[in-house]
């Protein structure tokens, strides 16, 4: 099992893994309240990345990662992932013709 120590590296590699194979990549979260531990795993059934922590600050970072994954998964791997808030606005809606203003 590959445990990654750096959060940023974990995020970077998970996103890459997902974009490479969106159909078989999954993100698993395991939380044990009695031990106060949180483990995250991202795998595409060939490669596996894990991250474990007992820090509350990592829970906050994980929330951002959750957002990223939700966006990638429901919209597709090419979705524009612009960290937290404002994801809706950055996606250009096709079908808007140039003549918006009526003068």
């Amino acid at each position, binding site marked *: 099992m590959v445990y990654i120590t750096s959060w940023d590296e974990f995020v970077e590699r998970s996103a890459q893994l997902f974009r490479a194979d*969106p*159909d078989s*990549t*999954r*993100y*698993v*979260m*395991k*939380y*044990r*309240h*009695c*031990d*106060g531990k*949180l483990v995250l795993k991202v795998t595409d059934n060939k490669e596996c990345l894990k991250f474990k*922590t*007992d*820090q*509350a*600050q*990592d*829970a906050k970072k*994980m*929330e951002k990662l*959750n*957002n990223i*994954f*939700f*966006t*990638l*998964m*429901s*919209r*597709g791997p090419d979705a524009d992932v612009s960290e937290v808030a404002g*994801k*809706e606005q950055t996606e250009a809606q096709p079908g808007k013709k140039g003549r918006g203003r009526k003068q």
Partner: protein
Amino acid sequence: MVLLQPDPFLNELTSMFEHSTEKGTVWVTLKRSSLKSKVQRNKMAAAGEPLEYRCLIRATNGKKTISTSVGPKDHQRFQASYATILKAHMTSLKKRERKDKKKVAGADKKEGGSKKPKRA
């Protein structure tokens, strides 16, 4: 395996967290899926129809499994509620407060908080 709508799923997830505070684990899995069998997918690809993908979310406490699927339209709302639930329940994680070390002189009441004793 119980397939629920997003809102009942969130309620069940909350109760799972509540029930596993003393003992037990909660697993949550996120995966992208089109919820169609391979045959259907091939047919759709051949006909040129774009496949509609959804995000499949599964949760289990080891005994019971619940799941739901979220599409691009409801994912924002679901993700906000999901984040709230997580924040509310992940209370047993340690808080690392390095700022306190200087101010609280010697009165370190935190158990196991002395990970990095920064004594120059």
